[in-house]
């Protein structure tokens, strides 16, 4: 039963029409920029080049993929009213939510990692030689789960979830990491950058702002992991509890 929920959710997220825009984004935009990044940041070494492409494109695309795909966990079903078929089956609700979340986050992580691979392949002209790639994939996976948990909770609590998610992904997540003082601790991206440990972009303020590295980021990798895992667990448990306890009905048309 768990397997069926999981596999159905994976298949739903991996539908051709859904995946193709992300692959296009990775294969054309990310790869294109990665291959030519030296033009834009002359004199930078390969590590810095990769770090710039990764922070500017891959991590922002991760937030975008997550914001859009997370709505398939629940919101889409609620909006489409098909949720009733799932809620009236002998499956505990938390299982339903958890396995759909798992599937969705894994797909998001995979798609984001493909983008990272494109970035790496572009900068290093091949798959080898990049010591950051593994760390990045780890950070992206953690990020997929963290964004997934957060957006899922937003979806459970709000009606217009996608707009809130997009505002968070592009507003909050690009602005807050660059804020002075300890504000940057309130952004998921800060911790992901801590896990990825990208080299500094140097004196280039413009690029630093884009790669969310303006703020004082002195978090260690392990702190990044621990914070994110606690964050994910708390959010998922809270979400599952909320989903089990409250009614999830499509909006009542004045019957």
């Amino acid at each position, binding site marked *: 039963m768990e*397997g069926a*929920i999981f596999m159905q959710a994976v298949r739903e997220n991996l539908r051709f029409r859904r995946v193709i825009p992300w692959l296009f984004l990775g294969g054309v935009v990310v790869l294109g920029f990665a291959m030519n990044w030296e033009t834009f940041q002359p004199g930078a070494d390969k590590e810095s080049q990769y770090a710039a492409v990764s922070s500017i494109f891959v991590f922002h695309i991760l937030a975008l993929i997550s914001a859009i795909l997370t709505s398939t966990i629940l919101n889409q079903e609620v909006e489409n009213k098909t949720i009733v*078929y799932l809620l009236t*089956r002998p499956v*505990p609700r938390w299982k339903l939510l958890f396995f759909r979340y798992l599937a969705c986050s894994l797909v998001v992580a995979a798609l984001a990692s493909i983008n990272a691979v494109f970035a790496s392949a572009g900068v290093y002209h091949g798959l080898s030689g990049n010591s950051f790639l593994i760390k990045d994939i780890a950070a992206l996976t953690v990020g997929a789960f963290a964004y997934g948990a957060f957006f899922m909770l937003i979806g459970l609590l709000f009606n217009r979830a996608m707009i809130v998610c997009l505002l968070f992904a592009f507003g909050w997540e690009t602005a807050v990491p660059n804020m002075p003082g300890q504000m940057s601790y309130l952004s998921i991206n800060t911790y992901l950058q801590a896990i990825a440990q990208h080299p500094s972009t140097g004196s280039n303020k413009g690029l630093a702002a884009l790669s969310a590295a303006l703020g004082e980021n002195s978090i260690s990798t392990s702190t990044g992991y621990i914070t994110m895992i606690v964050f994910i667990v708390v959010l998922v448990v809270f979400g599952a509890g909320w989903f*089990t306890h409250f009614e999830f009905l499509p909006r009542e048309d004045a*019957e």
Partner: protein
Amino acid sequence: MITATNVSRWYGQVIGVNDINCEIGPGITALLGMNGAGKTTLIRLITGQLRPTTGDLRVFGLEPFANPDVYRRMGYCPEIDNFYEHYTGRDFVRYLARLDGMSASVGNARTDEVIDMVGMSERANRKIAGYSKGMRQRIKLAQAMLHNPDLILLDEPLNGLDPVGRREFMDLLGGLADQGKAILVSSHILFEVEQMTRSLLLLHRGRLLATGDLGVIRSLIDTHPHQIRIETDEPRRAAALLAELPNIVSMKFDRSGDAVQLEVREPAAFYDALAAAVLEKGLTIRGFSSPDNNLESVFKYLVEA
């Protein structure tokens, strides 16, 4: 199987159902009511999508809200017309079979079985997006019967089915009911309900207005006034003979002069008197009929009263 004690449910300020007390056992039970009478709310309460705001609702002795133990024994055909449109009918039912806890192979076998039961075998491999309303209904019914539940709730199941499909489906439900399953059908197409049900619940503005089996309904029919039309060549004589009866409220002659229309308070007594008039007084009639001798007029009578 279902016991409701003082169940009420409201949404914000809008009341869905108000103080429902009832028990539903095996066999087919019809849930009747106008649009907005609370039928769907009641079904949603029973299927555990909603919690009663006040009161206590038990299904198989358990609280149904988000309770897998209840769902294991309950099938539900919702009134919505929404599916995973890009799935084929078969894949849709298969997926739900897996959610019912069946293994892939058992699920597939059972899927084929129920799809065959609703007569969709040849069409089940097409995408649901291309289905007509009738086909959609059939798929919804198929998924409700998947795990061979003891209790089946059907919200407007016959909408959009053609007459042949309706007949097949009513036979199917009849067969299930004979196996001792409880089936709750909400509908507002009364002549259909009349054909398949044994007992009914009538909701009106959120309240339970009437409950009972056919016998109760029968006597309900007899306690409200009937319009009876008698076709005869001698309407005035018929009127004279019948006017003596105490339970006649009014009489009216047709313009064409070959029929008389009566309003009768106690139909049971009246029909005996009519037979007596024909047999003993030699009144000749070509025919008589009453549009009120059925569920639809009881319904109207009760709701309008």
